[in-house]
C-alpha cells in the first residue's frame, strides 16, 4: 500500500522547482519528507553544522545570515534553503533563524541530489538559484535600509581621545583620520562623549575658546548610541529624531565605530556611474585614493545585479580608465601643461574592456613626434612617475613587467611606436612577443586619443598578412593550458589556503583571450574586446558557426565564474584572487567548468595547425 499525501504534494507543487517534477517523483518526495515546527526566534541551522536536508518553508518566514553575521536573505513560505550547504560539503553555509513561527518540510539529501541529477529543470533551479538568491540578497540585503545591519558601514576603528586632550590636538587627529568625529573615553574605556568637526567649529572657533581647552569641556555628553544589531533605518531614524549626524555603534560597552549621516548617504549611492562621476571630479590624489575604497562594493553589486561578464568588464574598465584620466589631469595640474601633446594609453584587460578586480596597471605614453628628449624628457619622466605611483595608491598595483608610463622604454613618439610594432610583427621572436602581446590590446585614455586609433589601425593592417607573426603569437597562446587531465579531471595546484585550486585566469580566461586575439589579428579586426573580436571572427569563414558560439559561451562562463569568485571573496572579507577550488562548486558547475576548459583545449589544438609560419 502506497500512502498518498496530496496535501503535502500540493503545498510543494505550488512553488518552483517542485512544480516541474513529474507526479510520481513529487509523490515519492512527499513520502520522504520530515515535518518540523519551529517557533519564531529559534536557530534552525547553525554555521558549519552538518546538514542532511533541504528545507522548504511551508509557512512562516526565516532569515539567513552570512558568515560574518550580517543578514543575507529573508525567505517567506514557498522558498527553500540549505541547498548551498548540501551542494558544497554538507555543512551549513548560511545559518538560519525563524523570524516567524515556521513549519518546515525537510527533504532528505539523497533524494535531493538524486532529483538534481535526474530532473534537469529541478537541478538547474538550484544552479540558477545560486545567483537568484544572491540577487534577492542584494535587493533586500543592500538596497533596503531595513535589512542592512549598521555594522556594515563601520569601515575603520573609532578615533578615541581622552577628556583632557586639547581641542587643537583633537582637531589635528580628526583631520588626519579623514573622519568627522572623535569618541571621548576615560581610562577604563567608558564612553563619555563625542566630539564632531562641527563641535570644533561651533563650540571652539566660533566662541573663540583657547585651543588648549580640553575636549571634555566641549564634548557632547551622553551621546545617543546604537547597539551593533541595529539596522540602517533604525540608525537613520535616531539621527533624524535627535537631529544628530554621528552615532557611535557599541557592542556591549565597547565602541566599534562611529557612523555618520554621510556614510549612510554614501551607502545608498554605491553604483558605478556615481563612482565615475566622483572620480572625474576629484581634486586630489588623496580623494581618488579614498574613492578607490568603494571599488569592491561597486564590484560586488555589479556581480550581484546579474550583469554579464562583458558588462562587468566594461564597467570596471570605465572606472579604471576614469582613475587614469583624472590622475593624468591632476598630475598635469601639478606639473603644469605638457610641453608637447601626448596620449595616455591603457593596455591589456582594461583596453579589452575586460577588467575585473585583481589587476596591475598596464599603461604607456604616445608622445608627439615633436618630442625632444633634452627639453621635454624631464617633464614626462616626472609625469610617468607621479601617474603610476598615484594609480598604485588607488589600488592598481605597479606592473611587475614595468609596462608603465614611468618606464622610459614605453614613452615613445608615435613614429617610434609604429617602428616598435613593425619590429614585433616583421621579426617575430616568440620570446620577445611573450611580453609584447599585451600591447596588441590598447586603448586611448587621455590626451590625443586619435593617435591610439591610428596605432590600432596600423596594427590591424600590418598583422593581418604576417604569417610568421601570427604563428609566433599562436605558439605563445599555447603556453598556458587548461587544467584538465587525461580523463577530463581537474588538475589542481596547492595554494596557500591549504586548498587545492586552479587559477581560472591563468588557465582559463588568459589562454582563451590569447587565442581570440590571434584570430582577430589574423582577420584584420580592430576590435579590442574579446566578445567583439569573436563577433568579427564570426563574420568570416575562419571558424564554423558552432565553434564561435562555443568559444563565446566558454569565455562568458570563465569570466563570470572568475567574477563570482571574486565577489564571494569580497563578501567574505578575503583578498580576492583568481583561484577556484572546484570541490567548493556544485557538481553541475564543475561540469560546466570542465566543458569550458575543454573548449579552450580544443581551440588551442585547432590553432596549432591553423597558424604555421609558412602555411
Amino acid at each position, binding site marked *: 500500500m502506497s*500512502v*498518498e499525501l496530496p496535501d503535502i504534494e500540493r503545498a510543494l507543487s505550488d512553488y518552483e522547482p517542485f512544480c516541474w517534477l513529474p507526479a510520481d517523483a513529487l509523490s515519492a518526495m512527499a513520502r520522504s519528507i520530515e515535518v*518540523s515546527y519551529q517557533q519564531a526566534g529559534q536557530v534552525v541551522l547553525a554555521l558549519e553544522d552538518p546538514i542532511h536536508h533541504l528545507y522548504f518553508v511551508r509557512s512562516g518566514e526565516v532569515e539567513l545570515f552570512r558568515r560574518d553575521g550580517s543578514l543575507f536573505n529573508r525567505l517567506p513560505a514557498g522558498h527553500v534553503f540549505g541547498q548551498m550547504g548540501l551542494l558544497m560539503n554538507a555543512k551549513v553555509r548560511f545559518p538560519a533563524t525563524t523570524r*516567524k*513561527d515556521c513549519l518546515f518540510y525537510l527533504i532528505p539529501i539523497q533524494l535531493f541530489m538524486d532529483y538534481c541529477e535526474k530532473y534537469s529543470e529541478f537541478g538547474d533551479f538550484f544552479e540558477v538559484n545560486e545567483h537568484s538568491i544572491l540577487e534577492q540578497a542584494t535587493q533586500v540585503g543592500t538596497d533596503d535600509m531595513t535589512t542592512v545591519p549598521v555594522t556594515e558601514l563601520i569601515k575603520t576603528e573609532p578615533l578615541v581621545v581622552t577628556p583632557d586632550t586639547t581641542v587643537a590636538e583633537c582637531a589635528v587627529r580628526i583631520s588626519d583620520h579623514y573622519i568627522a568625529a572623535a569618541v571621548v573615553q576615560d581610562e577604563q574605556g567608558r564612553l563619555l562623549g563625542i566630539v564632531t568637526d562641527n563641535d570644533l567649529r561651533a563650540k571652539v572657533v566660533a566662541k573663540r575658546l583657547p585651543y588648549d581647552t580640553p575636549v571634555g569641556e566641549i564634548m557632547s555628553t551622553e551621546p545617543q548610541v546604537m547597539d551593533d544589531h541595529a539596522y540602517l533605518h533604525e540608525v537613520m531614524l535616531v539621527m533624524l529624531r535627535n537631529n544628530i549626524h554621528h552615532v557611535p555603534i557599541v557592542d556591549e560597552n565597547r565602541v566599534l565605530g562611529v557612523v555618520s549621516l554621510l556614510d549612510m548617504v554614501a551607502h545608498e549611492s554605491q553604483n558605478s556611474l556615481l563612482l565615475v562621476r566622483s572620480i572625474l571630479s576629484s581634486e586630489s590624489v588623496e580623494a581618488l585614493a579614498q574613492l578607490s575604497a568603494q571599488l569592491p562594493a561597486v564590484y560586488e553589486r555589479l556581480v550581484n545585479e546579474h550583469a554579464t561578464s562583458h558588462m562587468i568588464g566594461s564597467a570596471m574598465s570605465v572606472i579604471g580608465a576614469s582613475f587614469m584620466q583624472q590622475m593624468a589631469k591632476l598630475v598635469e595640474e601639478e606639473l603644469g601643461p605638457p610641453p608637447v601633446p601626448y596620449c595616455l594609453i591603457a593596455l591589456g584587460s582594461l583596453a579589452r574592456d575586460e577588467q575585473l578586480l585583481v589587476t596591475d596597471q598596464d599603461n604607456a605614453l604616445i608622445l608627439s613626434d615633436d618630442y625632444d628628449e633634452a627639453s621635454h624628457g624631464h617633464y614626462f619622466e616626472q609625469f610617468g612617475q607621479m601617474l603610476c605611483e598615484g594609480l598604485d595608491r588607488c589600488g592598481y598595483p605597479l606592473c611587475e613587467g614595468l609596462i608603465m608610463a614611468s618606464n622610459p622604454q614605453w614613452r615613445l613618439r608615435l613614429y617610434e611606436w609604429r617602428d616598435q610594432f613593425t619590429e614585433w610583427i616583421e621579426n617575430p621572436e616568440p620570446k620577445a612577443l611573450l611580453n609584447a602581446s599585451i600591447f596588441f590590446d590598447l586603448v586611448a585614455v587621455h590626451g590625443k586619443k586619435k593617435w591610439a586609433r591610428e596605432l590600432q589601425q596600423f596594427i590591424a593592417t600590418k598583422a593581418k598578412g604576417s604569417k610568421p607573426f601570427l604563428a609566433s603569437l599562436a605558439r605563445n597562446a599555447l603556453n598556458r593550458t587548461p587544467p584538465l587531465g587525461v580523463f577530463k579531471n581537474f588538475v589542481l595546484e596547492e595554494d596557500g589556503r591549504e586548498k587545492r585550486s586552479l587559477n581560472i585566469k591563468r588557465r582559463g580566461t588568459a589562454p582563451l583571450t590569447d587565442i581570440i586575439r590571434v584570430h582577430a589579428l589574423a582577420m584584420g579586426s580592430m576590435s579590442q574586446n574579446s566578445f567583439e573580436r569573436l563577433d568579427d571572427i564570426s563574420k568570416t569563414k575562419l571558424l564554423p558557426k558552432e565553434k564561435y558560439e562555443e568559444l563565446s559561451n566558454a569565455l562568458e562562463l570563465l569570466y563570470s565564474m572568475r567574477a563570482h569568485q571574486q565577489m564571494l571573496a569580497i563578501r567574505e572579507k578575503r583578498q580576492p584572487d583568481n583561484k577556484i577550488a572546484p570541490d567548493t562548486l556544485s557538481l553541475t558547475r564543475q561540469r560546466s567548468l570542465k566543458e569550458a576548459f575543454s573548449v579552450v583545449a580544443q581551440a588551442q589544438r585547432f590553432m596549432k595547425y591553423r597558424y604555421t609560419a609558412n602555411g
Partner: protein
Amino acid sequence: MDNILQERGSVPEEWIGFQQLMAGCSHAELKDFYQSGFSYLDQKLVEAPCLAIDIETTGLNAERDKIVSIGLVEFDASRVYLASAKHWLVNPGELSDSSVIVHGITHSDVSRAPTIDAVIPELLRAMAGRLSVVHYRAMEREFFRMLGFSLWSQPWLFPVIDTFALETTCLKQSQGWFDRFRNKSLPSLRLPDARLRYHLPEYENHDALVDAIATAELLQAQIQKWQLGDRRVKALCQ
C-alpha cells in the same frame, strides 16, 4: 477485568498495572501490543516516540457507528516522519443510507476496502511502544474501547495525549485570573482553529491521515510554546 472499564469515558486508575494485567491476555496480537509496554510514560515528552492517530467514523456514537478510515503518522517533538504515514479505508460492513458520504468517503470506496480485522494487526504493530496522540480523545477512546469489545470481548485502552485537552489546559492557565473568575469562554479548540494560534498552515482536506499529521504538528507547536518538552509523559496524558 474491572467492570468500570466498560463504562464510557472510564480509564484505568493506574496505566502500568493495567498494562501488566493485559499483557497476560489470551489474544496473541493484543498481548503483543500490551507486552511492548507503556515505557514512554516515564520519559520526557521531548524524548517520547509518538504516533498521531485520527479516525473517521460513520457517526459520533461509538456503540452504533463504525470506523471507516484510520490515519497514522509517527513523530516526536522535533520531526513528523511522513515516510511512516499509514492510511486505511475500512469496510464497516452494513452502511446506513444516512452515512453514504462521510468526509468525502463514499459507499463504493469502503465497500472495496478491507474490514477492520484485516487492518488490526498492522495497526497494533504501528501503535506498539508508541505514545498515541489524538485531537479530542473522547472520540478515539470510545471507538477503540468498543473495537476491543467486538474483536476480543475486552476494552482496548491505552494512554493518549489529547492535543484538545492540552490546548484547553494551556489556554486556561494563560488566562488572567479575572477571565478565569468570570469563567470567560475559551476560543475555539477545533483542530484547524487551534493550529491557527500557532500559525500552522491550513490543510484543504480533512481525511484521517491529514488530521493525524495536523495533530502531530500541533503537538510539536504546543510543546514549544508551552515548554512541555521536559514534562513527564504520564503527567500530561490521560
